């Protein structure tokens, strides 16, 4: 497995370029600014943590230094953060092979495949760390987020009915999407096999 080199410059669907790099100590202020600009809606209100609190953000950045969280940022000019994705791991116990994926993209950069690119980086990193399975928790109302995950092979494995409640006291189903982290060389073998042994259409 090749270790990717950062920063990476990627081009979005609208032609705009964005820089991807792992989160570093010193990103606290910019990350807090990014979260503070997110409009309160049905998406942000379901964050596990209160990201509008700069102390919470500072703590998050500190935790990223340990091996339990790995995060990657999407930045534009003047180092402005427009997307954040993180991989959360227990690294021990019976869930040590599992990583949880979280992603958030600024509204102006949504529908540009940036979420897919960020998730893809997390999947790549999970593979490097030897994780075997990834999970993502989304609500039934988060259709775009779910689609981004599904494009990368995540599938609904469980649905907890009316398991979440929003600020307006509306109940939502919680979906647990999962994906196995396949060794890239196994993917290469599968690619060869799929090309050579798929008889559909022949």
């Amino acid at each position, binding site marked *: *497995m*090749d270790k*990717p080199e950062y920063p990476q410059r990627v081009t979005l669907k609208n032609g705009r370029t964005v820089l991807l790099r792992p989160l570093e100590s010193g990103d606290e202020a910019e990350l807090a600014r990014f979260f503070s600009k997110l409009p309160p809606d049905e998406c942000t209100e379901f964050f596990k943590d209160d990201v509008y609190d700069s102390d919470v953000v500072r703590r998050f950045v500190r935790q990223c230094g340990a091996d339990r969280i790995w995060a990657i940022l999407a930045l534009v000019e003047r180092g402005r953060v427009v997307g954040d994705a993180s991989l959360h791991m227990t690294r021990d116990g019976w869930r040590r092979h599992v990583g949880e994926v979280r992603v958030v993209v600024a509204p102006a950069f949504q529908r540009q495949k940036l979420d897919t690119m960020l998730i*893809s980086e997390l999947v*790549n990193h999970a*593979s490097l760390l030897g994780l075997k399975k990834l999970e993502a928790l989304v609500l039934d109302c988060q259709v775009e987020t779910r689609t981004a995950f599904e494009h990368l092979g995540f599938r609904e494995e469980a649905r907890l009915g009316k398991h979440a409640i929003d600020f307006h006291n509306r109940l939502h189903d919680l979906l647990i999407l999962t994906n196995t982290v396949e060794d*890239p*060389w196994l*993917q*290469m*073998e599968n*690619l*060869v*096999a799929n*090309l*050579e*042994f798929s*008889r559909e259409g*022949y």
Partner: protein
Amino acid sequence: MDLVELKVGGFGGQGIILAGLIIGKAATLFDNQHSAMTQSFGPEARGSACSSQVIISKNRILYPYVRRPNILVVMSQEAFTKFSPSLVPDGTLLYESDLVELANLPAGVKTAGIPCTRIAEELGTKIVANIVMVGFFTGQTGVVSREAIRKAIENSVPRGTEKLNLEAFERGYTFGSSDAKQRVAS
């Protein structure tokens, strides 16, 4: 050469179709040429004969099937036996030198071999033997540019495998281009 008819043959699991796909993609997407690829399989799946045929042309392609290849790449004895009679008299045969023994070739056919599976194993995995062969093909023939093939490889292989695949390509390319110079000099 304005029009190249290329056939790549081997057995299932060697990455024959992927090799053809990468060469065709390189020509079309990154070298400003036209290409068309078709593929065929033997009666059984894994281990049986399979081939990909690629037409590469500076002009529009009016007929997409390879009739008589002017370049034949073979990675198994069975593919050599089956496909070599169709090679044009002054054609080029590139072959996996550890797996293919040449016999009964028409006079005038240019040949060059490379132990691509062994080279791939030296790199750590024989799954890239096809990419070594793609490098050898590029170095020997120059039908598609080195840069175009590199981009096509990056564009075609799974994420995380690009570096080793490109290394495999370069090993084949170096082997092919130095061998080509020797042949010209001799």
